């Protein structure tokens, strides 16, 4: 079992228009590595949703991606407000997004459910007032 390749991205919370760039960068890396298209797509969608969430809710954060032989692990960590009720947040359509964010087409309440849908495992560590770390795994 070889060492995973690690990629680190800072997700800028100030700049909404750059949201999603880390997931595009990871997609490019995975294509170069020759991972199967369906795996690339799952990683890309899950990470994209997570990235957008970090920008909307937590003023940005860090995205770390570990590329293993047999799986890809995405760790999204922020120092945002935390999620008070994870169960509620996981419901499709549940959203706390403000109107200005909704006006941009975000905040449909599909972020977390989609992240779960496109990954094989998703773990949410969150503490109100401290931050949230989401670890997602896509198996090959």
């Amino acid at each position, binding site marked *: 079992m070889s*060492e995973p390749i690690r990629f680190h991205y800072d997700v800028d919370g100030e700049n909404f228009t750059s949201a*999603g760039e880390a997931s595009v960068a990871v*997609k490019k*890396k995975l294509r170069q*590595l*020759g991972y199967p*298209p369906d795996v690339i797509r799952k990683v890309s969608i899950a990470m*994209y949703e997570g990235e957008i969430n970090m920008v909307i809710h937590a003023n940005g954060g860090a995205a770390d991606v570990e*590329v293993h032989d047999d799986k890809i692990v995405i760790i999204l960590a922020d120092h945002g407000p935390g999620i008070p009720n994870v169960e509620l947040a996981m419901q499709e359509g549940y959203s706390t997004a403000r109107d200005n964010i909704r006006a941009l087409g975000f905040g449909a309440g599909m972020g977390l459910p989609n992240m779960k849908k496109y990954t094989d495992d998703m773990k949410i560590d969150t503490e109100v007032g401290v931050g949230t770390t989401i670890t997602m795994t896509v198996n090959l």
Partner: protein
Amino acid sequence: MAEYKHSVSLDVSKCTGCTTCLRRCPTEAIRIRDGHAVISPVKCIDCGECIKVCQHKAKKAVHDSLSCLEKYKYKVALPAPSLYGQFDHMDNIGYIIRGLKDLGFDDVFEVACAAELVSAYTRLYIKRSDVKKPVISSACPTISRMISMNYPFLIENVMPILPPVDIAAYLAHEHAKTVHPELSEEEIGIVFISPCPAKVSYVKNDFSGERNYITDVVSIRDVYFSLLDVMKKREDEPLETTESGLIGIGWATTGGEATAIFNERYLAADGIENCIRVLDQIDNEDITSLDFVELNACDGGCVGGAMTVANPYIAQARLQALKRYLPVSPNRPASEWIPTEFFNENSIEYTPAHLLSEDRRIARQMMSEIESIKESLPGIDCGSCGAPTCMAFAEDIVRGEANVDECTVIMKMLFHRYLEEHKEKSVLDKLASDAAFKKSARAGEEAPGNASGPNPEGEAE
């Protein structure tokens, strides 16, 4: 797979090895090697960006010349709608049609007419419940190639109906056979007058399979000057008239194809970078509730092609004027279903062009090396090494195509360290006092293996 025939080429004698095209290439297909550009045939998508930005006219579109007409007994011109926007003070498309006949064509079949049929078929196609939305236009070959390289999941979204030029070629061929049944296949020339090199590649690589009736592709630029000559010679009103309506001519500019679906759930984008962003978002399922997506690699749409003459926006303004008293869409399909001969038999194939190695274990190893080399590179993407970015340079090193000492920033740093260690005078003093040094520094530009920098010992050669 057969080798891909490209239509963007380089005149080595004119290329100075400047880095202008290097940075504009959307797929990082260009490197500067031995003082001139080199285009990777695997990564090039024939978008023509490098042709547009090259100040030395070293990048060229490969296409057929008008002398191809000599090969045939019966010649049909297929003018792209963008051709109509090239001429100043021209208020009637009839002049162009007559001009083409004066140039030696026996018949003219306007691609704009076929475009109206494609628009009608598109309206039918997107109504079908079994198609994957959003339907992505198949008209821009650069976009189709981009999708084949990077977006395997969007291949299914690409409309399987042939682009207008193929349908025009098919109909022109049918018509030629009807009016001249005595002609053999070899005697009929179907010549597309194209705004862009990507269409040349599309035809030369037989992307429409068996249904490729186009025999030659000439550039709008070439035809423009010949046409101007013949058009100027005749002052009388042309008896010819266009058979196209405003929908067909609208295809020349961004939004023309998309608005013709008569449905507001469309997106129309132009410029290759914008198109890539749109494709990324569709790929991430982030754009929903769209029925149709029109993507044009060139700014402004086909009028922005690398083989046109006029500025795309000026051409667009002219087309607006030309469209003014035309009917909406005089070309209507005979049936309410899409004829099978108008479907593309060849579907797009996923061909990843940026793969490091077929063996994923090796690819992973290479990626680790790339990441670690990248850390030691300056990260300013200056292009002096011949790669568009430090990242691409790191990749080239790992692929064995470049050497780290080609990085001028690193070499400069090492050189300064050398000067310090050897208590040399400052570079300025040295330049002022040492004529030989000065000469070699200036000669550095032409010196082979320039990457090693000016030679402080004296002569470069």
